[in-house]
């Protein structure tokens, strides 16, 4: 204890700043909506990172037998649907199907034919995606009636399948990954550009500041969503371009916030002291200015992520985002809107996934703002 007090005088400043973060965290812990959002967000991140690996179906696997099957906990195909498929398979093998029985994962088919049956008829059964390992269990002596058993492959689609017969749950998981990735990367791009630009303008002040902020004002007056659309339409639709385009739209506010903070910080004693000690401008920026703007930047950042995700979903909704077979929540919602007459779940599940994600991000951002905002003390 005594050792500690001896050691502390020099790094007094970092101690103080740590306590700021501690109090902020304590306040955040008291905010129930924000904590719930944090939990939901962690679940989303885990779902985005590991979900596609653990999902039972690959997101781009097409099941032609299961186009637009509704969400269900029961495995597909359901029993009464299985029999006609088996009969159809038998008919293709030119058999008169007498009976089809399903026992667990086994299908037993009894059939007759007017001609002699070739045991290789099992191939016709195997050809369907549903049945495998078809075997002849008994063949009558005149070779005109046969009993075939086969393994039935039944699949679960807990969120149903889309219009191409792909598992919607797996597609939602991969979309969450895409959305979170774009949210994080585009925010990162905006963060780097905005912080550097704003800090430079605010730190140098005078004519440089004027010039740099004038430029920001001009960019503000442009209809920027439209320019993003133009960029995406004209220069191909790849995900990397989208990060850059979205990030390039969102850095303006960030640069303004950082500039304001920087101007306030520049007059503080510790910056003047560093200047008096002969620290270079870039050194002061890196060591003193930028770390001290962190609070507002973090607040703004958490509120920017949902904005970016929304913009990406909007572009994807218009068909300007990620391309098939990859998908995104915006694409899924657009597909759901087209198919909502017959397949409501195709709209509802992706819409819920996006809405909950946006709610969680917004509540967390609001909570962080309340926790870090010094005006609130």
């Amino acid at each position, binding site marked *: 204890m005594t050792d500690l007090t001896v050691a502390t005088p020099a790094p007094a400043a970092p101690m103080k700043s740590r306590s700021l973060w501690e109090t902020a965290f304590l306040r955040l812990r008291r905010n129930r909506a924000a904590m719930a959002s944090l939990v939901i967000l962690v679940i989303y991140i885990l779902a985005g990172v590991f979900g596609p690996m653990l999902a039972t179906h690959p997101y781009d696997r097409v099941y032609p037998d299961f186009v637009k099957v509704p969400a269900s906990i029961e495995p597909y195909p359901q029993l009464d649907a299985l029999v006609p498929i088996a009969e159809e398979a038998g008919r293709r093998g030119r058999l008169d199907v007498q009976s089809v029985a399903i026992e667990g994962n086994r299908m037993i088919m009894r059939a007759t034919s007017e001609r002699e049956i070739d045991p290789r008829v099992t191939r016709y059964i195997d050809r369907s995606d549903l049945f495998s390992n078809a075997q002849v269990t008994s063949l009558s002596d005149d070779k005109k009636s046969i009993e075939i058993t086969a393994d039935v492959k039944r699949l679960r689609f807990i969120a149903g399948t889309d219009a191409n017969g792909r598992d919607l749950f797996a597609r939602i998981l991969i979309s969450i990954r895409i959305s979170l990735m774009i949210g994080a990367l585009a925010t990162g791009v905006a963060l780097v550009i905005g912080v550097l630009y704003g800090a430079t303008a605010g730190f140098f002040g005078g004519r440089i500041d004027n010039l740099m902020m004038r430029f920001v004002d001009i960019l503000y007056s442009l209809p920027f969503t439209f320019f993003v659309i*133009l960029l995406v339409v004209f220069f191909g639709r790849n995900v990397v371009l989208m990060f850059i385009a979205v990030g390039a739209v969102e850095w303006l506010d960030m640069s303004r916030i950082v500039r304001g903070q920087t101007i306030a910080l520049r007059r503080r004693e510790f910056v003047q002291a560093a200047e008096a000690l002969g620290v270079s401008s870039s050194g002061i920026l890196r060591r003193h200015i930028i770390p001290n703007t962190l609070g507002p930047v973090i607040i703004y950042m958490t509120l920017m992520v949902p904005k970016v995700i929304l913009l990406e979903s909007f572009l994807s909704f*218009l068909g300007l985002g990620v391309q098939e077979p990859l998908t995104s929540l*915006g694409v899924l919602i657009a597909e759901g809107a087209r198919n909502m007459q017959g397949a409501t779940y195709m*709209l509802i599940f992706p819409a819920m996934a996006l809405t909950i994600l946006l*709610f969680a991000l917004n509540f967390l951002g609001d909570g962080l703002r309340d926790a870090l905002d010094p005006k609130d003390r």
Partner: protein
Amino acid sequence: MLGYVVRRLLSAIPTLFLIITLSFFLMRVAPGGPFDRERALEAKVLANLNRVFHLDRPIWEQYFYYLKNLAQGDLGPSFIYRDFSVQQLLGNGLPVSIQLGATALVLALLIGCTLGTIAALRQNSWIDYAVIATATFGITVPNFVVAPLLSLVFGVWLSLLPAGGWDSSNSMILPVITLALPQIAVIARLIRGSTIEALRSDHVRTARAYGLPQRMVVIVHALRAACLPVISYLGPAAAALLTGSVVVETIFGLPGIGRYFVQGALNRDYTLVMGTVVIIAVFVVVFNLIVDLLYAALDPRVRYD
């Protein structure tokens, strides 16, 4: 005052010019052209088409040609919609977009202001929390989720309203709700915050001290000050609402101008894209000016001369 208006309009010209120039060259630099087809057109046909639309000229010449026509109010012919000029297309679509946007705007102002004021007067009551929750919902849920859900519930399940199309007066209801919902949310939030602040301010306390009835204090004195943030928000919001929403028009199948931009950009319909850009930019400039003038009218501290 008039001098201020003229100066503002003049200062908008460089901005408009910049927007037009940027869009023009961005589009022309991009690969592809308006006459690209799955099966290539015959060389001679293509050459003729290019000549008719001046695409065979150097790009600088095309640019000045476009500017010259624009200065005369001519937006040029559409490249894709044969026999239509961009003016005709926008002229057909704009009334629809304005009708929807203006209705949504009025609705949003009425409901938003009412909800916001009630919430501010009953701060921390259940009404207040209900308004905040509604506002959070309206801001968070994007319109491309709201629109299909409304269409599904009221159009398909309940069959109360048309799920899409533009044939009866009922077909306006769902699009207007979709457009108004986020605006209601933002306006209610803004009004609530600024009314709470205004109710604590000196001039409201003075009005109370004079013994004015509560209704007068709120409506005349508090709301006048509380309107200011809403008005500065409304400038860009109104411009965006009146120029149509691509999402709402696509989902409900409406003939507005919102979808022309994306369609035009995808089809490389150069003049149509430029036309929508010009219209939107003009709306933004005009509404920002109106906002500044309204501001001066409402806030005696602001004076323009």
